[in-house]
C-alpha cells in the first residue's frame, strides 16, 4: 500500500472504508428485512416499533406451501402431539392445515408456480444458450454480409419493451392456443434471451484463437468436429456464465408472465404479489415466498461475480 502516505490520506482512507460499510448496511437492509420477516410469527411482522430480535420459526414457509383454515377451537393435546412439527407451527398461529378426505395435505398455489418458474426458466435458458452459441460462432468465424446490421437487429429485439411485444403475441397466442401454456412463455423467454446470448457468446468465442481450429482442420477434423471438440470446451466458462444470466432473466421476468399466464403456466413473479390482495395481507407468508424466490438468484450472483460486468454490458466491456 504505497499509496497511503500522509496522515491526511490515512484518515481519508479510513473514512471511506467506514462510509462504504454504512452504504453496504443500507443496501443490504431491505434484503435482510425481508429475510427476517420470512422467519417471524405473524404477530411480530407488523409491530411498531419493528421487531428485530425474535425466535425464528418456519411457520411462514409451511403456510406458504399449504392451504389452511381458521381454527374454531384449540386442538386437543392428543391431536396436537400427534401432528408433525411443521403442522404444530400452524396450530400455534391459530390455524390448521387443510387435509383431503384421505388425510393428504392440500397444497397452496405456490409450489406449482415455483415449479413452473423452474421449468420455464431452465428450458428457455437451454434453448437460448444453445442457439446463441452456434450463432455467435457463425458471426465470429465466418464472413457475413452486413454483419453489424444483423447484430444490431439481434440486439434491438432485446430492447423492445415487453408490453409492446406482448400485445400482438397475446392476440397470436390466442389464435393458436398458446396463452397460459408453458410452451408459450418458453418461446417468449427464449426470444428475449437469444439476442443477449448471441452478443455475450460472440465476445467469448472471439477470444478463442482461430489457430486452434485451423490446426485441427489441418489434422483432418471437419469444421463441425473442430467446433464441438475444440471451440465448445474452450468456451465452457462463457457458456456457463451466459446460461446463468439467461436463467436469472427468465426467472425474474414479470410483465410477459403477468399478461400471458393466469393459472396453469403462471410463474412465481406474478403469483407472489397477487397474494397481497385485499384486506390484511400476511406479510410473513409473502416474505417467505420472496425469500425462496431470491435464494437461487443470490447464489448465482456469487457464482457469476467475475462475469457480471461482461454480462451487464452485453460483452462490450471485459476486465
Amino acid at each position, binding site marked *: 500500500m504505497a499509496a497511503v502516505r500522509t496522515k491526511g490520506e490515512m484518515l481519508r482512507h479510513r473514512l471511506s472504508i467506514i462510509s462504504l460499510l454504512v452504504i453496504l448496511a443500507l443496501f443490504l437492509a431491505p434484503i435482510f428485512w425481508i429475510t427476517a420477516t420470512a422467519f417471524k410469527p405473524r404477530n411480530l411482522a407488523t409491530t411498531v416499533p419493528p421487531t428485530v430480535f425474535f425466535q425464528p420459526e418456519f411457520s411462514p414457509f409451511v403456510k406458504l406451501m399449504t392451504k389452511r383454515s381458521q381454527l374454531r377451537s384449540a386442538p386437543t393435546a392428543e391431536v396436537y402431539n400427534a401432528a408433525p412439527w411443521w403442522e404444530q407451527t400452524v396450530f400455534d398461529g391459530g390455524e390448521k392445515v387443510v387435509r383431503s378426505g384421505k388425510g393428504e395435505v392440500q397444497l397452496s398455489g405456490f409450489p406449482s408456480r415455483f415449479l413452473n418458474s423452474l421449468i420455464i426458466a431452465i428450458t428457455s435458458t437451454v434453448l437460448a444458450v444453445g442457439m446463441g452459441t452456434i450463432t455467435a460462432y457463425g458471426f465470429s468465424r465466418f464472413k457475413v454480409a452486413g454483419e453489424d446490421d444483423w447484430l*444490431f437487429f439481434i440486439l434491438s429485439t432485446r430492447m423492445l419493451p415487453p408490453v409492446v411485444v406482448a400485445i400482438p*403475441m397475446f392476440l397470436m397466442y390466442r389464435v393458436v392456443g398458446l396463452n397460459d401454456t408453458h410452451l408459450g412463455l418458453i418461446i417468449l423467454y427464449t426470444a428475449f434471451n437469444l439476442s443477449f446470448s448471441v452478443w455475450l457468446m460472440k465476445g467469448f468465442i472471439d477470444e478463442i484463437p482461430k489457430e486452434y481450429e485451423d490446426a485441427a482442420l489441418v489434422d483432418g477434423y471437419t*469444421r463441425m468436429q473442430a467446433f464441438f471438440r475444440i471451440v465448445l470446451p474452450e468456451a465452457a466458462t462463457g457458456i456457463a456464465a451466459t446460461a446463468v444470466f439467461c436463467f436469472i432473466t427468465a426467472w425474474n421476468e414479470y410483465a410477459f408472465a403477468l399478461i400471458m399466464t393466469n393459472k396453469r403456466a403462471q410463474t412465481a413473479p406474478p403469483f407472489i404479489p397477487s397474494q397481497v390482495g385485499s384486506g390484511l395481507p400476511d406479510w410473513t407468508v409473502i416474505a417467505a415466498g420472496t425469500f425462496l424466490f431470491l435464494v437461487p438468484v443470490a447464489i448465482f450472483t456469487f457464482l457469476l461475480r467475475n462475469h457480471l460486468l461482461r454480462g451487464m454490458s452485453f460483452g462490450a466491456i471485459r476486465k
Partner: protein
Amino acid sequence: MNPEARVAQQTLAPTAPRAHGMSDLAIRNLFIIPTIVFLIVFNIFPLIYSLGYSFTDFRASSNDPAHFVGLDNYRTLLSDPNIWSNFTITAKYVIISVTGQVIVGFGVAMLLNRNIPFKGLLTTLLLLPMMLSAAVVGLFWKLLYDPSFGIINYAFGLGTFEWLADPKMALYAIAIADIWMWSPFVMLLSLAGLSAVPKHLYEAAAIDRASGLYVFFRITLPLVAPILMIAVIFRTMEAFKTFDLAYILASQPTTEVISIRLYKMAFQEWQTGLSCAFAYIVLVMVLAITNIYVKYLNKVKER
C-alpha cells in the same frame, strides 16, 4: 486487429469445401439462420401484425371484426393530453432515477476504487440488488414503505409518512426503490472505467501538486466518461420502459408511466387497435435510444 493479421487470417482460412464434412458456407447458414428466423417469427412478425391493427378500431374483448380507421388512432393519441402527461411522468421518472443512480453508483465506485480488505466480497454484496426480480423488489419495498409499520419511517423517524398513497410522493418512492436496485449497475461499470485510468496520470498530477477537484475533472471524469455514458444510456432506456416496479408499488395516476398506460389500454380497457398504435409510438422512441446505445457500445469496444 491490424490489417496484416486480418489478411493473414483470410489466407489461412480454408476457402474451398473440404473433402469431407459440410462446407463452411453450409455451417455458417446452419448456425445463423435459425436464430434470425426465430427472432423474425417471434419478434418482427408480431410487430408487423400489430402495425396492421394500429390502423383499426379492433377490440380483442369483443367479437366485432376490425374496421379500418386510417390514422385516427395516432391522431387520437397525439392529441390526448392524458397521454402527454404519461410521457411527462415517465420523463420525470427517468431523470430522477437515472441521476440518482449515477450519483450513488459513481460515488460508491470512487470509494471502492482503492486498496481495501475484502474488496471482492464487498463489491459482490453491493451488486446483489440489481440481480433480483423487479416485481419482488417492488413487493418488499411496499413492506418497507408501509406508513404504520414500515421500517423506513421508523428508522428515519418520519412518523406515519405516506410514501405510496400520496400522489406527489409516490413517483419519488418508486424512483428511490429503482435507485436502490440499479445504482449497483452504474457502480459496476464505473469501477471498470476507474480501474482502466492509467496510474501514472495520477502520479504526474501528484508531482504537479494538482488539487483533488482538478484531478477529478481533468483526469478521472474524462477517462471514465465513455463507460459511464453506456451506463447512462442503458439505464435511460430501461427506466423509459419501466413497468414492474411502478406497477406493483403504486397505482396513482401520478405514477402512470408509459408502460403502465399501455398495459391498461391493451389488457384492461381492451382498446387493442389504439394500444397497437401507442405501442408503435413507444417502439420508435426505444429504437432511437437503442441506436445511440449500440453506437456507444461499439465505440468503447474498439478501444
